């Protein structure tokens, strides 16, 4: 319980470690942190030829911003996120973070997947500390970093449990804490709460918002839930499909004076209802096009 409050400092021993978590803050305001530049992706088809999943997608994410990718199923959201993570390579264009082109995965970009990805042979604490231990040679294990993030996601009591003993929501919290524990510059999430029931889902959304605001994280996340997009997104990139293109980029006006901390606060905010209707209209259009 001693881990509350102060975030433990990460001591970087060699220069191969990532820049400090506040590197993003050093960039002048307005300068994009993540740049997605004319990205296209072709998948070869079995009978020859290829399927264009994404076509000329460009957008930018500013430091400390939560950017949400929204769009109908199959529009290429996961594909794009995996390219930012460095797990797949774009066919055209490029993604860059802090000016550097992304060519592979790295611990500067933490990822939370839609499916459960806790390592079942490790305890909850070992799962959270996994990334830190990997780099034991380059980073002196931040004293209590595991404890701190376990506490942030409310799992201190379950530190010595195995993931199989946890509920779905708790497992996604483990994945979130694990991704945060290496102090990534950017957090990537692919429908992290898709498998959760409604109540757990909005609790997780509020938790995420709190942690991300507090840690001043930059986030790129995927959802096809309008409510989630409006609640979490400082910017919303709406993609259309066949092929995946940017249809519209939205910036919720009601967040001008800060993010609403709860769903209720968001529902009460002026302009929320109108934006929600607008996004629903976009979704309906996409449905007709299919």
């Amino acid at each position: 319980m001693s881990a509350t409050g102060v975030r433990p400092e990460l001591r970087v021993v060699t220069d191969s470690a990532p820049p400090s978590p506040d590197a993003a803050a050093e960039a002048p305001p307005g300068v994009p942190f993540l740049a997605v530049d004319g990205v296209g992706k072709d998948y070869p088809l079995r009978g020859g030829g290829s399927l264009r999943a994404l076509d000329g997608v460009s957008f930018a994410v500013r430091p400390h911003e939560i950017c949400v990718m929204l769009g109908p199923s199959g529009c290429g959201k996961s594909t794009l996120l995996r390219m930012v993570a460095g797990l797949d390579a774009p066919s055209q264009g490029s993604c860059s973070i802090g000016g550097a082109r992304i060519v592979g995965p790295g611990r500067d970009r933490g990822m939370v997947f839609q499916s459960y990805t806790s390592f079942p042979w490790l305890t909850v604490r070992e799962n959270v500390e996994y990334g830190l231990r990997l780099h034991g040679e380059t980073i002196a294990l931040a004293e209590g970093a595991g404890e701190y993030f376990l506490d942030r996601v409310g799992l201190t009591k379950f530190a010595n449990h195995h993931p199989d003993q946890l509920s779905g929501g708790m497992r996604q919290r483990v994945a979130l804490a694990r991704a945060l524990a290496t102090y990534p510059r950017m957090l990537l999430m692919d429908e992290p709460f898709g498998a959760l029931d409604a109540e757990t889902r909005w609790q997780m959304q509020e938790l995420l918002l709190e942690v991300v605001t507090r840690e001043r994280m930059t986030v790129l996340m995927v959802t096809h839930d309008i409510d989630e997009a409006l609640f979490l997104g400082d910017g919303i990139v709406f993609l259309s499909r066949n092929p995946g293109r940017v249809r519209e980029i939205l910036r919720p006006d009601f967040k001008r004076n800060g993010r609403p901390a709860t769903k209720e606060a968001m529902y009460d905010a002026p302009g929320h209802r109108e934006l929600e209707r607008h996004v629903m209209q976009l979704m309906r259009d996409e449905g007709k096009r299919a």
Partner: protein
Amino acid sequence: MTHATPHIAAPPAGAALEGGAAPTVGRQLSVDFKQVLGGTARATLGAVGALLFLLTWEVGSHLYGQLQLFPPPSGVVVALWRLFGEQGFAWDVWASLRRILVSFGIAAVVALPLGLLMGAFPPLRAVGGPLVSACRYLPATAFVPLFLMWLGAGEEQKLALLTVGVVFFLLTLLIDNTLAVRTELIDTARTLGAGRRQILRTVVLPACMPAYVDTLRQMLAVGWTYLVVAEIVATTDGIGAMMMRAKRFVHVDEILAGIVTIGVMGLLLDGVFRLLHYRAFPWLHHAR
């Protein structure tokens, strides 16, 4: 439509009283397909099955009448008593067990690293895969003349046969185990900054270990099936050698005793592996 029928009708008043008991709906199965039996129920049913078998055998043997050719289970027990008590059969059992353990150990030491690496790295799999698959179809017993020429009639020849009998199947299954690792786990490790070796050591290996132990357990049973063949040729000790000796004197009870001993030994080793699985991978055995 002159009158509306309610979709869900209340049971007529007094319906429960007419038959004496409350009415029931739905069809109950006396035996459920995926029924989970309790420990005692399972043990009891298992014992009943074994007893039925032994009883049928005992009665059948006495009805047949020629007890030397077709001895009853009680005769086999007597033979076991004699073998262990007077003929030093424990040494034979130990000799066979040692052969099984040594040969299986060699097979495991060869197949485990290869199974891990070939499962994890597609180029390695492409190089070795066809060869391993082909070798699986070669009957191990066909190697006996070859091993006799190369290794003589001693211990090495028996160990070689027992090893070759399992190693290719073992390797194939271990590669499949390795291929079954979820890609998301590897991707997760990569986004946390893991390199190739770290992924192999901290993700693929621990993820595969439980399946590896299960595969070893199952292939050990196959190892026992080659034992008698291996011990037929110029052998003085071992369960198989005892059985060949017994055959010469038409001691069918001793042959059956040898078969029973192999079965029991297999069962015991199987139990050891199950215990190992239980101890080494506690997270797979949590009662939720």
